[in-house]
């Protein structure tokens, strides 16, 4: 097993109660693995109750990036949230910890 971190780096931010998490693969094979393994469903399961709403995944193939748009992810939004990470600045690091099958 690998972690997403072995294949990608990332960044996350806020828009209201939406947190978006971008992953950038470190190579073309790594991007293919990410596309296969890091589905919206698996991300949703990995975050559990931390993300209340649905998650959509978008692809940016030329820069080997995936973007996850996570709704209901910030405890009501950056301005209301009681969380220490109210702007979701480190949400991506929790996704980098997710374990995946790495065939490469």
């Amino acid at each position, binding site marked *: 097993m690998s972690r997403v971190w072995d294949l990608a780096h990332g960044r996350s931010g*806020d828009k209201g109660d939406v947190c978006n998490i971008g992953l950038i693969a470190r190579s073309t094979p790594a991007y293919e693995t990410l596309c296969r393994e890091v589905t919206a469903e698996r991300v949703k399961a990995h975050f559990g109750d931390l993300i209340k709403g649905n998650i959509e995944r978008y692809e940016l193939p030329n820069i080997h*990036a995936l973007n996850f748009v996570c709704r209901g992810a910030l405890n009501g939004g950056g301005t209301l949230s009681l969380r220490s990470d109210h702007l979701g600045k480190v949400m991506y690091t929790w996704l980098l910890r997710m374990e995946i099958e790495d065939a490469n």
Partner: protein
Amino acid sequence: MKSVKLGTGLAFWGDSIRPAIEMVERADIQYLCCDHLAELTMSILSKQKSKNPDLGYTTDIIPFLRGVLEKCRERGIRIISNAGGANPEACGREVVALCEELGLHGTKVAVVTGDDIMDRIDELLDQGIQLENIDTGQPLADVRDRVTQANVYIGCEGIVEALEQGADIVICGRVTDAALYLGPMRYELGWAVDDWDLLGAGTGIAHCVECGGQATGGLYSGGWQDMQRLSSLGYPVTTVFENGEAIMSKPPQTGGGVTVGTVSEQLVYEVLDPGNYLTADSTADVSLIKLEQIGVDQVRISNIKGKPAPATLKVNMGYRAGFVGEAQFTYTWPDAVKKAKAGLEFLAERLQQVGFEAEEERVEYLGVNSMWGPESVPDPEDPDLAEVVVRYAARCTTKEHARNVFTESVPLYNNGPAGASGIGTRPPVKELFGIWPCMIPRELITQKVEIMEVKP
């Protein structure tokens, strides 16, 4: 091919002014673009304006201009800023006063308005504009009596007009972040108002650079160890070409780096659907963007497309949403966690004794699960932990309830379970503002540009 060179001056209210000072000394820029506003900033500024009609703009613009303005005037660098916030007129007056003080006669200061619709809400509702929350579908009536501010994210047309009229400094309110960059691109490169591919490209390029140090090595997770001299980080310097491509770099002898990796991380920051990045000026499509390293600290940005601007503009309203009270304390070995939980019970009982009410509460253990929360990382159980830090926060409807959180935690020092320390000083009780995102037809919004010339 025609081009324009844009420098990123500031990325948020309170950002360091040193990168801009270095930039105007060392980089051959034509424009210095400064974003001072985040989602919450407008609520804070409107609160300040309600207490003092001369306030309500981000006051960091004045020390910023003190640092760069004389150099900018000498070199013909024009400054574009949204520091006007909730009060662009007052901001413009202060900027003119500063120019007078510095003897910069002949400087033209433009003030762009038209984003503030606070006084029009009822009229808009009467016209059938629902202003319902686009995230939740709730009607505005749910928060109408608590709304303190309503500003439209307006596009770059006011900035273009100000530049056409010869403005050296353009002060705006809630224009989009991208407009601060797209305005000078349109003005210099002659892009038509409906050339959607070029406007989309300009918007995407603006997105890559508007957060300053976040694109040049700041917060770079792909290799923060490789980024040298982050404490002297250089901000983006971007040459935009008339064909919608750009080369991003940073001033010489500054820290950080410009790589495909650093720009990629910024590109995905705060983006929803990358194929439909909605702004007032265009719908940008960055889904097939290409980034290419063409030299040390030089990245070419290309292949961004565009579609027509949306028929509606986004409105950012702020509404009063209560107060937050916080307490934090530390317990030590042995049984640090057990003692911390007993401390939390102690606090809960004392709060109950004073009739405390909260709409929502949160407990986090710092160093364990304060970032991802107990939802992702369970509370610690190890009885051998050297120490734990607990943070308790509550959202309350009144200031008094919120204030009680800290007050009732103070006796933990002497009266609670053993091993308590680190309670700290009383934090200020913070008023919360909710953000109400909604839409308004674009034809209902007209920008206005006023030019003031600094007289001797």
